[in-house]
């Protein structure tokens, strides 16, 4: 029988998969240490800025009434969005039985956890008295006050908290059998350290029986969760009556944008990583092409959403909506508005071409545009709508300051630091899931 082309199937044997993935965990190279040092420096820039903000107050950020949400909230939405691609790949595509997800899922799930960890810092950076951040949580206090559960900001606390917990759980559960494989391969003191994290995993039939079922349920719970989290984030805006925010399109528009930005970040991280860790034969052009198709889909949904926003603003006959959207394109921050449209709606359309989808360098360059474009999308939504709402008397313009940029740089450092440390400590390709795709050999050969 002629062999059917199955590009998702790794051509390696089980032993080769273990060898190659465990091989990535060796002693770090100079380049790696340099990157890590860079990430930590960026992080320290952020820490320094934050310490100054603690001493001086929020005045050092670019807030200017009525614009009281600016770069910090932009960063928050940006980082939460990054996380969504990871859960899409690890949970939703698992339920859809997409076999190509296996080699990339671990890296993307780790990206999710670290991105949400980064996002979670921003509400705290943004509030005026950081030491009272726990007021957001419902806890018995001396004034007998409870949070307002009708406020989307409180929904957000629950959504982000749940998302961080569930995606961390998903990552850790997936890691346990792989850590056991590393434990059995490395030997020496490292083996002892890994065996602590493997919590007695041996791959018995009984363990797999419970594990496989549990994994299915975790995926089934994470699937609606990922769609809900960015919907809830979008309602932080859409539940208000501010022009440019008050739209029913916001939830699906934000979810598509989140996945789009997340896959952009996957490209930015994985393309250099697979080269540095010599995993080119495992994470191939085929996998990047599949990711690029998802990017094209979500990018096109964004294109539609942008067009629809402008159309609805015009068709509504509402002068406030019309003015807001006119000023997004031709107001004082027109450059932000056009960056968002060009980087997201137009650059994604390049992916209609198969040659570009399979060209790793092109994808890397496009991914940088996606990251920039999606950051600007959130900036435009927040800054433009707040700066001119109803009465021109109350309008005001806000511009980011050095403190805003310092915190943004710090967030990239914080995220990069965690991701780099993870990639050298734990298997960045899911050993066990790749092995599930590769059949064990048979005595008679064939299947």
């Amino acid at each position, binding site marked *: 029988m002629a062999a059917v082309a199955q590009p998702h199937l790794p051509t390696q044997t089980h032993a080769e998969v273990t060898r190659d993935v465990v091989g990535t965990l060796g002693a770090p190279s100079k380049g790696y240490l340099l990157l890590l040092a860079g990430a930590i420096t960026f992080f320290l820039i952020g820490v320094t800025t934050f310490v100054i903000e603690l001493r001086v107050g929020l005045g050092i950020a670019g807030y200017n009434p009525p614009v009281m949400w600016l770069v910090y909230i932009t960063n928050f939405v940006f980082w939460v969005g990054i996380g969504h691609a990871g859960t899409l790949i690890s949970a939703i595509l698992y339920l859809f039985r997409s076999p190509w997800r296996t080699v990339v899922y671990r890296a993307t799930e780790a990206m999710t956890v670290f991105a949400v960890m980064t996002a979670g810092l921003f509400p705290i950076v943004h509030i005026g008295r950081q030491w009272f951040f726990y007021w957001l949580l419902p806890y018995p206090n001396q004034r007998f006050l409870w949070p307002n559960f009708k406020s989307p900001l409180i929904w957000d606390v629950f959504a982000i908290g749940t998302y961080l917990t569930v995606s961390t759980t998903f990552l850790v559960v997936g890691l346990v059998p792989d850590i056991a494989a590393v434990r059995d391969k490395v030997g020496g003191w490292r083996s002892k350290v890994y065996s602590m994290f493997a919590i*007695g995993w041996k791959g018995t*039939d*009984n363990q797999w029986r419970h594990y496989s079922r549990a994994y299915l349920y975790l995926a089934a719970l994470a699937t609606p969760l990922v769609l*809900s989290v960015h919907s809830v984030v979008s309602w932080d805006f859409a539940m208000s009556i501010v022009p440019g925010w008050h739209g029913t399109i916001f939830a699906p528009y934000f979810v598509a944008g989140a996945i789009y930005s997340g896959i952009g970040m996957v490209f930015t991280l994985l393309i250099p990583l697979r080269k540095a860790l010599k995993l080119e034969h495992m994470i191939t052009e085929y996998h990047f092409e599949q990711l690029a198709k998802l990017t094209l889909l979500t990018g096109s949904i964004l294109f539609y959403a942008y067009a629809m926003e402008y159309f609805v603003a015009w068709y509504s006959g509402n002068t406030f909506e019309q003015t807001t959207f006119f000023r997004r394109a031709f107001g004082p921050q027109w450059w932000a508005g056009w960056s968002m449209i060009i980087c997201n709606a137009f650059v994604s359309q390049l992916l209609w071409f198969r040659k570009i989808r399979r060209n790793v360098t092109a994808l890397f360059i496009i991914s940088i545009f996606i990251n920039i474009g999606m950051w600007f999308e959130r900036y435009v939504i927040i800054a433009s709508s707040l700066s001119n709402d109803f009465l021109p008397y109350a309008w005001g313009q806000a511009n980011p300051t050095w403190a805003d940029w310092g915190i943004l740089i710090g967030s990239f450092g914080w995220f990069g630091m965690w991701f780099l440390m993870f990639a050298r400590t734990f298997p960045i390709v899911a050993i066990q899931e790749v092995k*599930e795709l590769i059949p*064990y050999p048979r005595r008679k050969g064939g299947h």
Partner: protein
Amino acid sequence: MAKTVPGVLATFRHVDAAVDAIRSLRRQGSKDLTVYTAAPNHEIELALGHKVSPVRLFTLLGGITGCTAGLAMTFWMSLDWPLLVGGKPIATVPPYVVIMFELTVLCGSLMTVTGIVVLSALLRKKGAAYDPRYTDDRIGIFVPCRPEEFGTVESMLMKAGAEEVRHDAD
């Protein structure tokens, strides 16, 4: 070191050989087999004839608990300090659905993980022999049996196609 159980440990390279061995062992009435694989394998699952894992009960229980807690918490806290805003009802379901949903997912997931820990770590069969190659590319079968049975079990496993067999008498 944990107390070991006497028995025979066989190592297989081929999945069909391992499946044959499991089938013939089960025909002979062997119970409490432990099969080691590097990834879940359907053929071996079928040969072992396991029932569906009870982990789903944990998930269900967690989900129901979370949903109820979300409903109870939001209603009780709203009514505990009734504050009328914009003529809207004090306690009402639609905005609280979000909290209920998030807590359903949160408790459901955490209970699912508790399920794995309880079922596969705390209730595991202790003392079965193991070999580090089983997380790599080999399949292992551990048959607990009395020392006088070692000979028959070993020859049966070799006949089924085991690569090697060994026994640990206590």
